């Protein structure tokens, strides 16, 4: 093989590896073992207050209405299944929304933190997305930072009497983008660049993951709006129950 042929071969191998083998990958779940020990512990500890708040809230909800436990379980299962759904013909690889933003808008962010950590644990063990030692970091970015931002954006925009669907789009898309920023920061803090330190590293990680994550945020926003339109026309009573 000539040098160019070799290069072409290598390139096609990498391409096949990235887009062929990994049909169902969440690029943004930090994989098992990727973070050093201290980072695993610190991100895990940072999640604790949110999880405790969520746990207390769930306990209260369940004490008041037993039935809500089943509804919450269904939402957890829904988030898991939605993340497993493929969205064909958008990119070569499959991309899928996380659904946590919509969940936060519907159920409140602290509840989503608890549901999120359970779903992330299931994703690690049943789908091999994410990991056990990186569970803390992934929970912080996907089940806490994103949903809390989504919820905040939704509430603030609603205050200004902006159309509900616009709010849902902005909340879920921004929540997704925020999750992606937090994950980049987490990775950069773990592996600062030799030249330029953490700052340069954040830029590098964001650049690398922007390819999949920016279109995904817009897609998540659009899909959340489609789901919301459907819910508004078919599930008015359920939505009223949720105080949406």
């Amino acid at each position: 093989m000539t040098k160019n042929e070799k290069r072409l071969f290598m390139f096609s191998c990498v391409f096949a590896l990235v887009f062929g083998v990994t049909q169902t990958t969440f690029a943004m779940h930090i994989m098992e073992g990727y973070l050093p020990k201290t980072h695993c512990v610190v991100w895990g500890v940072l999640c604790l207050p949110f999880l405790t708040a969520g746990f207390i809230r769930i306990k209260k909800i369940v004490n008041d209405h037993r039935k809500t436990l089943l509804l919450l379980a269904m939402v957890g299962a829904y988030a898991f299944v939605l993340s497993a759904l493929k969205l064909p013909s958008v990119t070569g690889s499959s991309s899928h929304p996380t659904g946590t933003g919509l969940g936060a808008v519907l159920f409140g962010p602290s509840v989503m933190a608890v549901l999120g950590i359970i779903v992330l644990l299931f994703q690690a063990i049943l789908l091999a997305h994410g990991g056990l030692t990186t569970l803390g970091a992934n929970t912080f970015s996907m089940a806490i930072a994103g949903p809390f931002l989504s919820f905040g954006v939704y509430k603030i925009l609603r205050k200004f009497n902006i159309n509900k669907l616009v709010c849902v789009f902005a909340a879920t898309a921004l929540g997704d983008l925020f999750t992606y920023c937090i994950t980049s920061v987490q990775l950069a803090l773990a592996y600062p660049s030799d030249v330029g330190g953490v700052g340069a590293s954040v830029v590098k990680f964001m650049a690398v993951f922007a390819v999949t994550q920016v279109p995904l945020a817009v897609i998540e926003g659009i899909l959340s709006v489609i789901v919301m339109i459907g819910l508004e026309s078919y599930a008015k009573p359920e939505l009223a129950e949720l105080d949406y």
Partner: protein
Amino acid sequence: MEHMGFTAIDHNAYNSALNSINSMLKTVFFTSVLIYGIVIDSPVVSLFIILSMAFITVVIGRIKLRYYIRVMSIPALFIVLSIAAVLVNFSRSSTGLFTLSLGGVNIFVTDEGIKKAVCIVIRAFGAVSCMYGLALSTPMADIIEVFRKFRLPEVIIELMFLIYRFIFVLLAVVENMTRATEARNGYGSIRSSFYSFGSIGKNLLLYSFRKADFAYDAMESRGYDGKIAFYSEDRNIRLLEIVFFILYFVVMICLS
């Protein structure tokens, strides 16, 4: 495999030869090896973990080698992208082992960067193989049972069991919906695939609300008062397993 392959890992765990071992012992073994590998952070130990876990899962657990390699490649996209970010450096002045100049900015890879990247990859795959060791030998229901023994709050345990159960309920529905959509060329164009995906998402959420209603009625009519009983089997721990556990750690400590 049913359900579009999304329950394949659980399915394999049920069929693993290691499924008959006490689930508490398995969980403690795999997670302690996992944590030890990350705390020690040495390539030699991690290489030992990668090879020994492959042996445990494939030879002792009788998981098909081809399947094991396939699950090992699941984190490939993440590792390729994130290692690229660790390897490549940008600077105006400094250069490294390989340097590419683009309009005054040097894009380069350093010797040290390569060493660091190799260490990260080996450690990560060592940890991943521990996680797969657990996932491919212990069904999810047994793992939840272990959490209960560690005294996690009962509400959380119930929530986990219910989510686990409902995942299968919803996956079956999604499978039907997706097949129906494909049969009607619902993914024909980007526009229609967006519409179809949104419709499935919406209908699935509606379905899960209704299903939660039905499940509650069914449970209440059978005397549900806030406690769900689940079936679990306690398997005895054998001496040979404990000897293996200790020997494994002795080897790991010697290597580090």
